[in-house]
């Protein structure tokens, strides 16, 4: 198998380089976010859950459109999207105290009177994070007045699709969607696009442990990073030209 792979590695390296060029072009003038090393940026070192939550909340506040936010958070619910379109968007609340101040919700997004989305943010895998509180969170949600209520558990990976009614969505999915959004905004809202790409870089580097091989690295080093290129390829599907 190792022998059979040798010539194939060059084919893949060429394909991955072409993919990087495409990503650069789609995100011009900012370029591929993984080229920036946010691994050393103290604001978003891997321990700082609150920082990731705050930045994500800021981005969601910039996006506002329900179609885009639902897609970003992996929520498939045409009826809720449709209802949210006609409602007032409220900027996301962070660290929302509930249950007599004994619990705090990471991120609460509301389309006034219609849709409530609660996002529980984890900077680790869902299985290693403490998810026992989710049942209480969901209990609180059921008492809220909005017609549509959706609970999302954002984590690096998970073995289950759902944790106490909180539906798992991966940081990988969120980053792929954010890359698409940055491509959409890059000419009309360049500062927002730049902030989104900086956040993507921090998440992909610090939480998802992604990095790019050096351009002169041997082909096998490029192939070893196939998951990174699959991620980039996924984000390019459906991105704005």
């Amino acid at each position, binding site marked *: *198998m*190792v022998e*059979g*792979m040798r010539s*194939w590695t060059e084919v*893949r390296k060429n394909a991955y380089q072409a993919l990087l060029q495409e990503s650069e072009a789609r995100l011009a003038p900012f370029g591929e976010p993984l080229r920036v090393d946010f691994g050393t940026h103290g604001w978003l070192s891997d321990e700082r859950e609150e920082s990731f939550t705050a930045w994500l909340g800021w981005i969601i506040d910039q996006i506002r459109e329900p179609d885009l936010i639902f897609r970003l958070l992996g929520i*498939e619910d045409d009826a809720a999207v449709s209802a949210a379109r006609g409602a007032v968007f409220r900027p996301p609340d962070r660290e929302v105290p509930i249950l007599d101040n004994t619990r705090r919700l990471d991120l609460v997004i509301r389309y006034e009177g219609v849709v409530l989305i609660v996002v529980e943010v984890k900077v680790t895998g869902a299985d290693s994070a403490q998810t026992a509180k989710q049942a209480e969170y969901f209990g609180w949600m059921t008492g809220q007045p909005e017609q549509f209520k959706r609970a999302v558990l954002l984590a690096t990976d998970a073995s289950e699709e759902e944790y106490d009614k909180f539906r798992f969505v991966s940081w990988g999915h969120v980053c792929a969607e954010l890359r698409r959004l940055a491509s959409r905004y890059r000419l009309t809202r360049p500062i927002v696009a730049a902030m989104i790409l900086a956040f993507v870089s921090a998440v992909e580097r610090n939480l998802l442990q992604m990095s790019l091989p050096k351009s002169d690295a041997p082909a*096998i080093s490029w*192939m*070893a990073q*196939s998951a990174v290129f*699959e991620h980039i390829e996924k984000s390019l599907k459906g991105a704005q030209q």
Partner: protein
Amino acid sequence: VTKASSPTVAPTSGGSGKFIEEGAASYVQATIAIKEFARIVHEECEKVALDFLDDINRVMGTRLSEDDLDQCRKGKLLDPRDPWLCVYFSIKDIGWIYLGLYWQSVGEGGYKLHGAAMIWFRDKKLFECAREKFKGVEDSRIELFPYGEEDDCLTVSESIPIEQAASFPHTLHSVLSGFLEAWESIGGLDGLKPPAPSP
């Protein structure tokens, strides 16, 4: 100062020396090669599954989309007792449709490669109902392989000689066609519903 003599370094025990030498030389490449092999198989399985998506929905009576297709975790972490590399659609309340490669153990550490399309039912009664329906269909390629009665799944499979392994996507086309032909003959998943009570 007397320099302490180096302890005698014993080679690995149990005659594993040659294996360790070869492993030390090729471990990284072998790991990357295995991952890449699985990636290619998954990619080809996905292509075939998506080629047939409209047919699957038409025949089975489902409303699956591209987003419902996932890679099988079994493929990511290979279980040598049940070695699959495959993709699958989840069908709400029914089960899963799998498409991929299966290695059948043939004894003495050997494996025989198969392309397979399979449905795994969540519900035993639904599985039994489907089995009954297929018993009445001539030329149906549906069988229990690679599992048995207790596993609640029905499969169409074809063995693939190793020298033809590179053309496995062709076999996947063939087994998925056979799978859908068989299901069309019993009216898809709707065919498993109990008849409406007569007025």
